[in-house]
């Protein structure tokens, strides 16, 4: 596999979360709106494109879980993130040195009830094409999503 376009290493703490989320949001833009100017035209990252919304939402849940569960909110370890973008897909890997766990034992929430927790993994899995986890150290999360064939993209208007 070719080297990732973007690598980010940072503390595995919620305080730094926005750093990672913003990087992933920008990487999504490169996939979903490659014809846009190389830059956002506004300082807001916008998740109005469903591809960006899906990937960023899923990524944020997995990041939160690492900070909260793998590192127990202690922020005493790092997260290494690698991002590959192609014309029509994104792949994001996260590596941490926190406690491993058994992903297969996490139940799918019963959606006929309202839950106050246990929705993060379900959200991530539902929004992405693939969510893989290999317990470590380091623990490895591999997230993938393809851009669906564009449904008549709104014209750029320029």
């Amino acid at each position, binding site marked *: 596999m070719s080297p990732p376009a973007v690598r980010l290493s940072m503390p595995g703490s919620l305080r730094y*979360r926005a750093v990672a989320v913003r990087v992933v949001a920008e990487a999504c833009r490169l996939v979903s709106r490659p014809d846009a100017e190389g830059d956002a035209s506004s300082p807001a990252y916008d998740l*109005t494109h*469903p591809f960006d*919304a899906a990937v960023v939402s899923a990524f944020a849940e997995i990041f939160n879980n690492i900070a909260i569960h793998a590192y127990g909110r202690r922020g005493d370890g790092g997260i290494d993130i690698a991002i590959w973008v192609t014309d029509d897909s994104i792949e994001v890997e996260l590596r941490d040195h926190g406690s491993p766990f058994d992903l297969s034992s996490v139940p799918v929430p019963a*959606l006929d009830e309202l*839950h106050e927790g246990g929705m993060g993994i379900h*959200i991530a899995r*539902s929004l992405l094409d693939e969510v893989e986890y290999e317990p470590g150290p380091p623990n490895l999360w591999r997230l993938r999503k393809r851009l669906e064939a564009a449904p008549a993209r709104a014209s750029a208007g320029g």
Partner: protein
Amino acid sequence: MSSENFKVTTTADETRIQVRGMLDVNTAPTLAEAVDELMAKRPARVLVDLTALDIIDSSGVAVLVKLYKGIRAQGGQVQITGARDQPLAIFKLLRMDKVFAL
């Protein structure tokens, strides 16, 4: 009570909570405190306006569920309106669009 992320307005008829920006693992706890304060007052009618909410995560959803369940358990009414874009997609995914009557 209010913060950068929400504003609570109480009138004779109802309590209105406007949520804006990002409601996530970092910002949800402040709203959760406000929900506790509110529930102590046993309001009859709560309206949650999500028109200005840009992004939510599962922690944000959890606070809204807590509010919804809590107020209803006290016999109050809750209406959650205005979700769009990413938040709406998350509510749909969690099949909450029915419960919340979005």
